[in-house]
């Protein structure tokens, strides 16, 4: 009996070892791909795709820091990528296996090189801005027709927030997104790493926090679409997905997205391969598949985020390529800022401030 169990265990171990070579495990953000693409990948390559999702950079980062995540492709955002490269969490990409590299867009590559010099470790998946999702009708009812809905006044003026509280406001639970916006609002450098400057946003956030129904980084998509909340400070494509879902449901909910006129954070989600990926070969195959112009366009057409693939623009539907909320015009582009990672000490100050803001203590 014992021999039999042992034998079975060995067989099982063997089986998992065998399957690792034709399996690709991808860990990406939630609501971030057209699932038909996943089926298409399996069909074209014969590889089995295991696709898991997360909704915060922190969750991904902890897996990367612990090591042995078992994933072949992960998608951290710029600042997180930079730190994870520094601790040696990723392997350099093999350019010979990425034949679709020529499709990439130099405008975006130049910006992502701030985080990953030479783009040696990562390829841009999507990029976007952080801004305001508004349920137009409800906000007009509460604040009046002529309140501008593209200004951070909407969420950082206490009197506006006090009135909006009745219909619900969600903020991203991401200090690295909200604090730069608050800094931009009070006229400071949004990328400031000076604890004294960062501390200036605390009274502002404290004044509006009682009126924030929830700090969460993915629930607002459904909440906006269902009309449960009327304002969300969130990621561009997520809000545009909410807009689309609301339009499909046809229940009279109309959502719009604006990058704030005071300036908006521009962020980049980068595909990278963990240093201990079980199947780096398959990971490159997946990257190259996504870098194909038509595939990338299909993903963007589905999730309403811009991508870093110039060739894909020929295949984008007008709703995406012509929407300045997704592909900003030159004027808006100038108004976008990017941020760099906080050093450990400053990170603690930021997290502590964020906890105080969220809990009121």
């Amino acid at each position, binding site marked *: 009996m014992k021999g039999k169990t042992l034998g079975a265990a060995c067989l099982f171990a063997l089986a998992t070892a065998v399957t690792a070579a034709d399996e690709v495990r991808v860990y990406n953000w939630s609501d971030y791909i057209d699932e038909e693409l996943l089926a298409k990948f399996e069909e074209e390559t014969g590889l089995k795709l295991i696709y898991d999702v997360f909704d915060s950079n922190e969750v991904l*980062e*902890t897996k*990367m*820091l612990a090591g042995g995540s078992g994933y072949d492709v992960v998608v951290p955002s710029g600042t997180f990528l930079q730190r994870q490269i520094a*601790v040696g969490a990723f392997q350099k990409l093999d350019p010979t296996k990425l034949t679709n590299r020529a499709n990439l867009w130099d405008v975006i590559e130049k910006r992502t090189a701030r985080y990953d010099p030479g783009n040696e470790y990562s390829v841009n998946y999507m990029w976007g801005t952080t801004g305001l999702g508004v349920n137009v009708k409800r906000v007009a009812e509460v604040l009046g027709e002529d309140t501008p809905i593209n200004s951070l006044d909407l969420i950082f003026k206490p009197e506006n927030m006090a009135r909006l509280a009745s219909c619900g406001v969600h903020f991203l639970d991401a200090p690295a997104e909200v604090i730069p916006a608050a800094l931009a609002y009070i006229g400071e450098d949004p990328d400031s790493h000076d604890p004294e400057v960062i501390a200036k946003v605390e009274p502002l956030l404290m004044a509006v926090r009682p009126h924030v129904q929830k700090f969460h980084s993915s629930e607002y998509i459904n909440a906006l679409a*269902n*009309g449960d909340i009327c304002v969300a400070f969130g990621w561009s494509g997520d809000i545009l997905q909410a807009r689309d879902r609301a339009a499909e449901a046809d229940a009279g909910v109309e959502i719009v997205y604006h990058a704030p006129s005071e300036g908006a954070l521009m962020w980049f989600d980068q595909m990278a391969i963990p240093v201990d990926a079980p199947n780096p070969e398959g990971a490159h195959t997946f990257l190259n598949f996504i870098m194909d112009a038509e595939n990338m366009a299909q993903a963007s057409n589905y999730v309403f985020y811009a991508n870093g693939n110039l060739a894909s623009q020929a295949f984008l539907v007008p709703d995406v390529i012509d929407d300045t909320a997704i592909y900003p015009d030159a004027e808006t582009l100038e108004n976008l800022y990017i941020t760099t990672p906080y050093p450990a000490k400053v990170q603690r100050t930021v*997290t502590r401030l964020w906890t105080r803001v969220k*809990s009121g203590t």
Partner: protein
Amino acid sequence: MKRVVVALIPYLWLLGLFLVPFAIVLKISLSDVAMARPPYLPQFSWSEGISTFLSQLDFENFTFLTTDDLYWKAYLSSLQIAATSTLLTLLIGYPIAYAMARAPEQWRAILMMLVILPFWTSFLIRVYSWMGILSQEGYLNQLLLGLGVISEPLIILNTKIAVYIGIVYTYIPFMILPIYAALHRLDNSLIEAAEDLGCSRAKAFWLVTVPLSRNGIIAGCFLVFIPTLGEFVIPSLLGGSGTLMIGKVLWEEFFNNRDWPVASAVAVVLVLILIIPIVLFQQNQQKQQEAEN
């Protein structure tokens, strides 16, 4: 021989699944945060020897916990939420257990089944469905609005009330089952005797039934209180920004600050907070048993 092996099993379990993990957490709590993978130093290596390794450890992270009021506030708030939910669960669970124990014999199996049945669905799905019930456009508000009980939708989701609802709902079987077990064994003739001796029904309940089900109540309270204290899923799904709980603080130390040593220190203190009352309680129990003998 066989007996020794059987007796060893619980100890091995305790060693492998409690003491060893706890020692690892304790070790991390004594190290320093670093830009590394995993993100703390020193890491143990056989070549440097155990003594050099131990000399690099210190209690810095524990002293750090005393410098910021966030931590004790979170511990206190968790204790308060856990205590309130335990009390609520007891108040609701006891009558249910009592009714089950008093129900006709042939019904009991079905009633028991109804209490256990929800466990067959994932805990996460059950908490999620509460979000659908309690949200502003949710079933509860639609029902109350439809009946004309309220004119404005109630804001329940993302408040402390939702957290209490979630905790009580999730943990109530853990309260019902031990109390039911105690009441089930209760000899009915004792109550008859009390009534014969002039007790009113209510008085017999307080003087006979409740004291005899004491062990069930205590077991139920522990089973609810302990997991609630460190609860993370329910407050993060149903709670709002104001729900401060130690599970959440631990999460933030671990994920947002990437400070595994401080996160581990928070966890060690939480275990100590839990162990001390349990040990005191057990000593008290033993003394009582000795006194009775």
